[in-house]
């Protein structure tokens, strides 16, 4: 039943489902409703760490070393506990500076060095190829095995197969096709692939389920639980030895080194970096991941030992490779469906790893290896091309195919030399070389570009010498004596016992020496050299990222500008014109303008363009491209340090600033109050003006109206004609009075009035006022009484005319309110405390206390509504008050409704009251 075509069909169906999940995820992402914005999805996606190595290889490792398969999972468990600090920082840096790959990260940190980017990419590709080849081996092997059901045969040596018959080749091609489909449908500036993450999370579930089901089947189906398996195994001497580990330093050394190695790899493997950092959507997802991911590892390892032991016992002596137990055990028990499921689980584990790893590698190859070369060599041609996004995508597709082909070649050349796990560990050791550059980069400002290059190169060289070459030797590509006696017969240079260090397994040995070289040289070279300005800037930006980033788009160190007209097409070439325009539009809106054309060409815009571009072609290339547009003056070191040390300076001056800002607040509050007052006054002035114009227009209306009437109509009767003319005359007089008073008031208020201040005899002044008003009093038949006699009265310093004006104003007011025939107005004088006091009292209707101040307001007239509209301009009292106040006095009113009113003013006496007369007696009042 399990014929070849059935298996193939099911495999493609599964891959189809995977693709559908990815497609759905991408569509949801485009619609803005991401399905991966979920910590559980994130934690599951991290399980891409578990490839066929985990699915098949762990059992194989357990069969030979017992518990020795475990450190590779304990390491990540321990590491994620530290992720709270380290991974958070790495993610923050990556998001803030638009980093898109591990090569980008390292190159960006060390001064955006293209050289470093290239180096990292090359090391990554070389280091990971064995890892990819082991996936091919596992998938093709499992397919071959399953195909031969119900017989259990081990796959023949790969070399024996002619290429065109080699399933592994077709698997490699198919994987290439799928990877291209998954990862290169479009260019995303952030290099995120939401659909891919969804698919990976899905396949993590599938492989976990597959393994658990097989494990449960073996433990509880074939045997009767954990206890029985172990009990039975104890009875087999070889197996008993597996129950524990040898109590030797060697063992512990290996254990420790492997744990440490996997701690590093969980961060430095390109696929792990891609999934856990670049694809991360939300820093907070780390929370759940910190315990969910170790839990996943725990679960997928629970049944490893039972399967291994069970397989060993069941297949004793039959030469079945322990790496295949997960598949062959169900097969041996005739569980077809289970075996198929196990195959799918293994397929899932392998494809997940290959897809993500290859995408990550191809991105690096494109951005850090190919593009920089293309940009430099074929400069002119690339300059003319309007849209380079297609070129970028095709470069990546070729890279994916190339990498998989390299994996296949490695598989054919060296795939048989090692078991799955051992091959994987070689890759681990290779990518571990990135760790000093990364962790040093984010915590130590002193790491220089030269130091990183030197350290990386040294570590890689040691790795190649102690692991890669020996693997070739073990596959027969190099003479075996190379291993056993050292090159040219020098024992101290034996690749796996360098300088005589023996007793370590090859991985630990390699790790020790390579880390020693890497870290040592990195530190020494960094300390011995100096950093360039860019390096220093980048170093601080990385190490201090938490302090710096609330604003993701920092201007960085651009000093210069480029116009949008230049930047937009540049971006369009690499991102595609539509995406570029979208990005600029969003940026423009953030800066508060409507269209990108209105954006100011400043350093911020340049930095924005650079980060966007970095997403497509990597940070180093982006810098080169943008720099070609920008007329930039590189900042001097001093300026850079100034810019960057702002923070510390501010801290030092913060107390001063705080105080200054408090003072500023107080001043601002005062200013605000003053402004309000000014506005108030302004408004009042406007009111005054508008009232004045109104008052002026009113008499003018009558004058004009009657003039026109008289002009038009000669037939008007004489009495009426006279009446109208009289009105015209009266209104003219009214107008004149008003204009005079307005001018008067304005002059007094603005201080431009002329004052002729002399010594005055108050009695004389009163007499004069009375005389002038006498006509008015006679006409109104109001009585006027005054106590001012003809003798000399108190003397004040004042303007005679003005004082008379005041008195006349008061008197005429009094007359106007008194009822004809009954009215009585009295003028009283008094002296007290060096002041002269004059009262003008009438027996009119009085003024209610509420209006005592109102009467002194401009244009305000308080009239008895029964008598109709009050006469007068409404300006008399305000003018009088200002006159009195000008001479140092006060004018006020005392009155109650129905009891008349008394207007009083005081003026300072000119001479001390030495010549006081009988008036003094009244001073008591």
């Amino acid at each position: 039943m399990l014929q070849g075509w059935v298996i193939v069909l099911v495999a493609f169906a599964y891959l189809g489902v995977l693709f559908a999940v990815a497609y759905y995820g991408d569509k949801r992402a485009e619609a803005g409703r991401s399905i991966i914005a979920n910590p559980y999805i994130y934690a599951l996606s991290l399980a891409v760490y578990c490839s066929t190595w985990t699915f098949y290889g762990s059992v194989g490792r357990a069969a030979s070393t017992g518990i020795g398969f475990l450190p590779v999972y304990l390491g990540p468990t321990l590491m994620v506990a530290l992720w709270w600090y380290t991974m958070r920082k790495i993610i923050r840096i990556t998001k803030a500076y638009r980093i898109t790959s591990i090569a980008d990260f390292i190159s960006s940190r060390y001064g955006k060095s293209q050289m470093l980017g290239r180096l990292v990419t090359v090391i990554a590709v070389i280091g990971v190829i064995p890892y990819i080849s082991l996936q091919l081996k596992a998938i093709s092997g499992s397919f071959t095995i399953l195909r031969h059901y119900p017989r259990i045969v081990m796959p023949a040596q790969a070399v024996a197969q002619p290429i065109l018959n080699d399933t592994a080749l077709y698997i490699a091609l198919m994987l290439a096709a799928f990877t291209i489909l998954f990862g290169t449908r479009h260019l995303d500036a952030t290099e995120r692939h939401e659909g891919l993450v969804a698919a990976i999370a899905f396949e993590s579930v599938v492989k976990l389920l597959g393994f658990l089901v097989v494990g449960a089947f073996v433990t509880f189906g074939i045997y009767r639980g954990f206890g029985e398996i172990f009990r039975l195994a104890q009875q087999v001497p070889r197996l008993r030895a597996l129950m524990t580990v040898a109590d030797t330093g060697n063992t512990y050394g290996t254990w420790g080194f492997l744990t440490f190695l996997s701690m590093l790899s969980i961060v430095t493997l390109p696929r792990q970096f891609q999934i856990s950092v670049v694809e991360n959507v939300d820093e907070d997802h780390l929370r759940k991941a910190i315990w969910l991911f170790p839990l996943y590892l725990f679960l997928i390892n629970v049944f490893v030992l039972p399967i291994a032991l069970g397989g060993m016992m069941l297949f004793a002596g039959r030469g079945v490779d322990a790496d295949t137990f997960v598949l062959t055990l169900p097969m041996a028990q005739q569980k077809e469906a289970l075996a198929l499921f196990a195959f799918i689980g293994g397929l899932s584990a392998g494809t997940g790893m290959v897809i993500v790893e290859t995408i990550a590698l191809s991105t690096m190859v494109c951005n850090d290896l190919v593009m920089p070369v293309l940009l430099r060599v074929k400069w002119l041609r690339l300059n003319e091309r309007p849209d380079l996004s297609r070129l970028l995508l095709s470069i990546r597709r070729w890279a994916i195919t190339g990498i998989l082909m390299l994996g296949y070649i490695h598989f054919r050349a060296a795939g048989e030399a090692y078991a799955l796990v051992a091959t994987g560990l070689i890759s681990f050791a290779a990518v571990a070389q990135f760790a000093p550059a990364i962790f040093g980069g984010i915590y130590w400002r002193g790491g220089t570009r030269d130091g990183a290059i030197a350290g990386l190169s040294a570590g890689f060289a040691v790795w190649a010498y102690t692991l890669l070459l020996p693997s070739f030797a073990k596959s027969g590509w190099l003479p075996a004596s190379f291993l056993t006696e050292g090159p040219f017969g020098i024992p101290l240079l034996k690749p796996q016992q360098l300088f005589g260090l023996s007793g370590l397994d090859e991985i630990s040995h390699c790790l020790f020496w390579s880390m020693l070289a890497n870290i040592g040289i990195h530190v020494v070279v960094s300390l011995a050299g100096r950093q360039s300005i860019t390096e220093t800037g980048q170093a601080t930006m990385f190490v201090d990222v938490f302090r710096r980033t609330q604003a993701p788009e920092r201007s960085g160190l651009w000093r210069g500008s480029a116009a949008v007209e230049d930047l937009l097409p540049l971006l369009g070439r690499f991102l595609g014109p539509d995406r570029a325009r979208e990005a600029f539009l969003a940026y423009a809106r953030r800066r508060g303008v409507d269209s990108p054309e209105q954006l100011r060409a400043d350093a911020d815009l340049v930095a924005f363009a650079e980060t966007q571009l970095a997403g497509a072609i990597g940070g180093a290339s982006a810098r080169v491209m943008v720099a070609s547009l920008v007329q930039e003056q590189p900042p001097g070191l001093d300026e850079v340090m100034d810019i960057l040390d702002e923070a510390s300076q501010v801290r030092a001056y913060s107390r001063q600033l705080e105080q200054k800002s408090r003072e500023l607040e107080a001043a601002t509050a005062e200013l605000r109050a003053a402004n309000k007052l000014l506005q108030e006054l302004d408004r009042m002035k406007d009111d005054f003006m508008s009232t004045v114009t109104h008052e002026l227009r009113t008499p003018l209306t009558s004058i004009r109206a009657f003039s026109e009437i008289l002009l038009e109509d000669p037939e008007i009767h004489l009495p009426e004609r006279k009446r109208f003319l009289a009105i015209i005359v009266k209104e003219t007089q009214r107008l004149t009075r008003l204009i005079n008073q307005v001018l008067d008031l304005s002059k007094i208020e603005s201080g431009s009035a002329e004052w002729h201040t002399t010594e005055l005899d108050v009695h004389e002044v009163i007499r004069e006022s009375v005389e002038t008003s006498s006509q008015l009093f006679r006409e109104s038949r109001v009585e006027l009484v005054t106590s001012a006699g003809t003798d000399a009265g108190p003397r004040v310093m004042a303007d005679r005319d003005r004082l008379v004006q005041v008195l006349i104003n008061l008197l005429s007011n009094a007359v106007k309110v008194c009822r004809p025939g009954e009215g009585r107005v009295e003028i009283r004088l008094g002296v007290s405390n060096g002041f002269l006091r004059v009262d003008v009292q009438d027996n009119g209707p009085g003024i209610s206390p509420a209006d005592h101040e109102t009467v002194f307001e401009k244009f305000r007239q308080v009239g008895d509504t029964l008598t109709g509209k009050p006469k007068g301009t409404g300006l008399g009292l305000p003018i009088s008050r200002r006159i009195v106040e000008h001479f140092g006095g006060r004018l006020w009113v005392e009155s109650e409704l129905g009891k008349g009113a008394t207007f009083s003013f005081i003026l300072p006496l000119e001479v001390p009251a030495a010549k006081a007369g009988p008036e003094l007696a009244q001073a008591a009042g």
Partner: protein
Amino acid sequence: MMRSFRGGHVKRSGITGQRLAAIFLMGCILLNYPILSLFTRPGGGIAGIPLLYAYLFGAWALLIGLMAVVVERPRD
């Protein structure tokens, strides 16, 4: 659609980070020599499971459990 990353609340979660660092150290000790050597005696076992295995998986589970608790209940 990329949701912008949130500012790291490093200060607020300082205690969580420290606790996790403590768990890390604990794990390093528990899962390595010399503590490990205590359990490498042959024979023995818990419910039929050899001592070393039981210890390793048990310690592992313990660490995971502690991390879960620390992360999910930040302020005790």
